[in-house]
């Protein structure tokens, strides 16, 4: 596999080999009949992290979350939370709470009763329950709605009740299944920041399941990208976006242009890839570890291109093409440029001043150029 070097973040706990993981998933597999929902997944999550499991539907992310909550038992492998093996411990005895995608608010109970439910199960004294419920409702700004039933609340309020109910027991670990999935776009953006603030304020470890890559990028300390029951890559949002380890990850997160080619120069400090698809060579300013002459893919993000009418003043990493489509999006414009090989390249350019997009029109011949650090070389 081609590996691209990346800057090390010395401060991060996950880079410290001495750090003790708070949640440890050890070679966990879950089968439903013949179907393998989760396949030999190992993962370490540290205290106070906000970890996102990201993937398409049916990739196993929810099953993994439900195993942490105790609704499913792993077929093989073990789960540890704070060093304790969770095998055989039913959901009602785990130091874990979950916020459900549907919120699962009890329809016959008021907001207050919903939030108090978990504390009552622990047999806490009445006055302590009352104070803790009150504090929690204050935190999520729902005091004036305490006596209402769930159906008398708006979607955003329900989401906050669900959050309050799952946090009030002060769990070691909070599991959130698509926490923002049911909210409309505007509310979702606002709520994302609220969720992050709350998590930092309370210092609870969060594991969030989402299919929305933007949500994962905004929320998480780290993301685990899942596909077909396996974890493909674990890393910070930046790692995942800038240094994807596979074609799957590169294509799943954001847009990418993929050029197939062959390594023709393979030096420790640079490589050169000959790509017939591109109609030229790609110079990359870092070495990759890959077999010489191997087929590789150079992945370049749309925003990493520069588009110009004049030939830019650089010898490497320039290619000519014809503009086929222009989509004006307001904050930026998207260009589809056809290369000599008929390959279409997607390019985005910010509209930094008014009418910035006017200089380029349909069927115009343009030059595409990029910085030597931009391509990511992938072997699969």
């Amino acid at each position, binding site marked *: 596999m081609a590996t691209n070097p990346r800057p090390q973040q010395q401060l991060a706990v996950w880079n410290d080999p001495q750090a003790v993981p708070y949640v440890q998933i050890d070679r966990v597999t879950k089968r439903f009949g013949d179907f393998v929902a989760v396949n030999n997944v190992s993962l370490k999550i540290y205290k106070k992290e906000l970890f996102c499991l990201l993937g398409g539907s049916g990739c196993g992310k929810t099953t993994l979350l439900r195993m942490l909550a105790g609704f499913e038992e792993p077929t093989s492998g073990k789960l540890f939370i*704070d060093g304790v093996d969770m095998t055989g*411990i039913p959901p*009602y*005895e785990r*130091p874990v709470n979950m916020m459900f995608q549907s919120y699962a608010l009890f329809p016959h109970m008021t907001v207050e009763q919903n939030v108090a439910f978990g504390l009552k*199960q*622990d*047999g*806490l004294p009445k006055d302590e329950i009352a104070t803790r419920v009150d504090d929690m409702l204050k935190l999520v700004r729902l005091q004036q709605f305490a006596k209402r039933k769930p159906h008398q609340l708006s979607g955003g309020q329900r989401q906050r009740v669900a959050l309050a109910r799952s946090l009030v*027991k*002060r*769990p*070691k670990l909070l599991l959130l299944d698509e926490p923002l999935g049911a909210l409309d776009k505007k509310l979702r953006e606002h709520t994302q920041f609220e969720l992050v603030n709350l998590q930092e304020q309370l210092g609870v470890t969060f594991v969030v399941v989402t299919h929305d890559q933007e949500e994962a990028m905004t929320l998480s300390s780290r993301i685990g990208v899942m596909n077909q029951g396996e974890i493909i890559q674990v890393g910070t949002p930046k790692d995942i976006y800038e240094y994807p380890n596979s074609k799957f990850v590169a294509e799943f997160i954001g847009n990418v242009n993929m050029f197939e080619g062959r390594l023709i120069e393979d030096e420790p400090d640079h490589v050169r890839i000959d790509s017939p698809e591109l109609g030229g060579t790609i110079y990359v300013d870092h070495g990759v570890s890959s077999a010489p002459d191997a087929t590789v893919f150079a992945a370049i993000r749309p925003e990493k291109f520069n588009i110009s009418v004049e030939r830019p003043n650089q010898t490497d990493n320039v290619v000519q093409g014809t503009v086929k489509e222009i989509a004006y999006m307001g904050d930026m414009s998207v260009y589809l440029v056809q290369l000599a090989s008929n390959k279409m390249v997607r390019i985005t350019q910010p509209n930094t001043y008014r009418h910035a997009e006017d200089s380029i029109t349909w069927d115009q011949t343009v030059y595409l150029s990029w910085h030597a650090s931009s391509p990511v070389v992938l072997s699969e």
Partner: protein
Amino acid sequence: MSARAEAPRRHRHSAGVQLILDFLNRLPPYRWTQSRLVRWGITGRTAVTAIPYLWLLLFFLVPFIIVLKIAFSEARIGMPPYAPLLTWIDGSVAQVNLQLKNFANMFQDSLYAKAYLNSIKVAAVSTLFCLLIGYPMAYAIARAESKWRHILLMLVILPFWTSFLLRVYAWIGILKNNGLINNFLMWTGLIDEPIVMLQTDFAIYVGIVYSYLPFMILPLYSNLEKMDLTLLEAAADLGARPFKTFMTITLPLSLPGIIAGSMLVFIPAVGEFVIPELLGPSDSLMIGKVLWQVFFTKRDWPAASAVAIALLLLLVIPIVLLQRAQAAEARGAHR
């Protein structure tokens, strides 16, 4: 950190419950029973399933096996009025006394065959009329304004909650020679002599259609009500006239509802006893009535059991059809 983390990993009950549980845990018989139950794998779940399970095994399945057994035994005078299938000779040799006579009888005696065919005919014709009346009604209710829909639906269901027997009884007063219809027709001068309607096959049809009409309307309504109206608009937009739209879109899509409704009428109508007894001619041959007479009048339990088994076999196909239609409807609801 949290109260939960420090506490021993064990469920906490309120103080009172905890006290009782602690006390119980100290009693040896309680602990013994509990450990036995756990060893046998008997949990709350098993108990929840087992109670209705045992009830239905005992009061639904076992009775059928008994009926099956009696259908193969010989009638005799005494209590119970049938001979055992197995008799022990000298306490060691078993003699099997399996009789096919009761079934053979059903083939030989043309009364049974006639009753059989007549039941199917009566049920089929009644089902057809139910469909002809019920479909337009279900359609009209499903397309009515939503504030009316609930009231109309309630009006369909209301008779179902009143006594079935009394609703059949009402038709005696309407159909008899000096009943409502004849009185009315004679008053208008259309007829001079009453038309004989009560104790005819016609009365049986009226009674069955009347009693089972709600069973036809309800599944049809629920099918038609959830039909996507934009499909009809699309068909109209593509140039289909209303009648054509109905024949090519509405009718095929409502087929599961038609089958479900028809089977809900057909199945009970085949075995119907009350309606032919009260409204039909005294010699009307319906299989349910024959079974009743064989059992209560002739007191021939084995013959009655054989008729029951035969009736059940007759209904296997309609029941399968019904279950398929209902499964199709359930799938449609989830789509």
